[in-house]
């Protein structure tokens, strides 16, 4: 079986921050996961938005810290990529459903191809970025 790469050695494109996503990135410096929560709808949302996806109202939103644990929703094995990911294929791109009920796109690392299945329990792996922030990756929660 071919090695599924964890991409921990490559220089990834640095994500920009937007005025409304800054709390997420600030918390990532301390490896803490903040997710937006609509107090009126009683539901979380991801990725961070400038307003509630449920009600369209801004004051309903607050940031809540969550564990980052969840399950695999779906995945694909990338076999053709562009730089800087080229020549590091194959790697896993996935959607993870956090226990709080949101889907998050990320990479699954430290995982064999045959273990990738819907419902696989995963937990966060915070990958350091050169500017002090961390990128949220996932690994099997064993």
């Amino acid at each position: 079986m071919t090695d599924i790469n964890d991409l921990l050695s490559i220089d990834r494109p640095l994500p920009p921050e937007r005025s409304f996503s800054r709390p997420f990135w600030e918390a990532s410096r301390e490896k803490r996961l903040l997710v937006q929560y609509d107090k009126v709808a009683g539901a979380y949302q991801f990725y961070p938005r400038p307003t509630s996806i449920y009600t369209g109202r801004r004051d309903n939103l607050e940031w809540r810290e969550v564990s980052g644990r969840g399950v695999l929703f779906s995945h694909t094995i990338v076999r053709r990529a562009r730089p800087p990911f080229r020549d590091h294929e194959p790697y896993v791109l996935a959607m993870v459903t956090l226990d709080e009920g949101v889907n998050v796109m990320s990479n699954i690392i430290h995982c064999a191809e045959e273990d990738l299945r819907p419902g696989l329990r995963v937990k966060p792996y915070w990958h350091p970025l050169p500017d002090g922030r961390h990128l949220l990756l996932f690994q099997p929660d064993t």
Partner: protein
Amino acid sequence: MALSDMAIVGYAETKIVLRSEVDVWELGAEILDSLLERTGFEKGEINGLILSSSSTGAGNIFWSQTTADQLAVELDFCQTVDIGGSSPVGTVARAAAAIDAGLCDTVLCLFADTAVAENNGRPRSYGAEWTTPYGYLGAPAAFGMLSRYYDDRFGLDARALGKLAVAQRAHAVLNENACEKLRKPITVDDYVHSRMINDPIRLLDCVMPCDGASGILITRRKTAEQRGLTRCAVPVGYGERTNVGAASAIVDPTLTGHREASERAFAQAGLRPAQIGSFHPYDDFIIAIMMQLEMLGFCAHGQGAAFIRETDFSFSGDLPLNTGGGQISAGQCGLAGGGTNLVEAVRQLFGEGGSRQVSDTAHALVTGIGGIPYGRNWNSSTVLILSSNA
């Protein structure tokens, strides 16, 4: 809006090429020239111009105006439609609405893109922040995850999908405007064994980026009749849905806006799927065709493979599918690619399909797909039903 008071009186298309040797505006001029020749309209009679999105023009904040300037058309109505691959189909509805509202009389809908030769796109989306750092490179990865989800839920039948790929390729062989590189027959085995790009998306699931242009001329049906243009295509039903599942944190990616869009289009047309004579779905990936068969009501959700196995999709079969080869086998002209499916539907209703002419020219169905949101299916779904002027 009385959609059916309108008539598409002409269509035009350039050869689709791997990389254009001429400027996108020259391709546009080729379409204009061809439409004037075929319809007998004078340039001065065209007073509306609606463009599809174009990667070539994406960086140009005056895209529709500067294109109008290059073609020297004086206008009462002018705009670019920016719903991605849904844009060409979307121009038909917007042209009809503008004519119906008395804003203009005769509209050139122009779909031109040389995205390979000259891509000026500067996309702004969730991507740079939430997906690019993970090595997500757009559509093939999105459709890879979507296909895996479909497989987990319903089971994916690669040979059924291959049957769609083979049918479209056979049609491209008969289409002189299709990209030459793709005009070679393939088999289901070729499809199944083509190399994996983003599991389970294979090479033969994907469109090839190309350059090219197409267009239609649309006016009032009454005007068409007065001029003796009896051979025309009448838009009888249209539906458009953008951002399905926008207010949910978890969305089933196999459910698309084509369900809502087609319910509206079929109701407006007073037709059912069984009455469709030829089917021209937007095809950026083979599985998108199967998903649309389900969402448009040809079969139930999750039953696409069974429907495919029992249906003949050749131009002479039960449900002729993308009789020009679709974008997957004719080549995708950037953001103008949806024009390839649209123009082929019009050509079939005109009875000008030549060696691939379908027998039932009463009604054709064209769709659009545009944009890929975060972890869902696609941003915009459009459905257009055309009838011949019977």
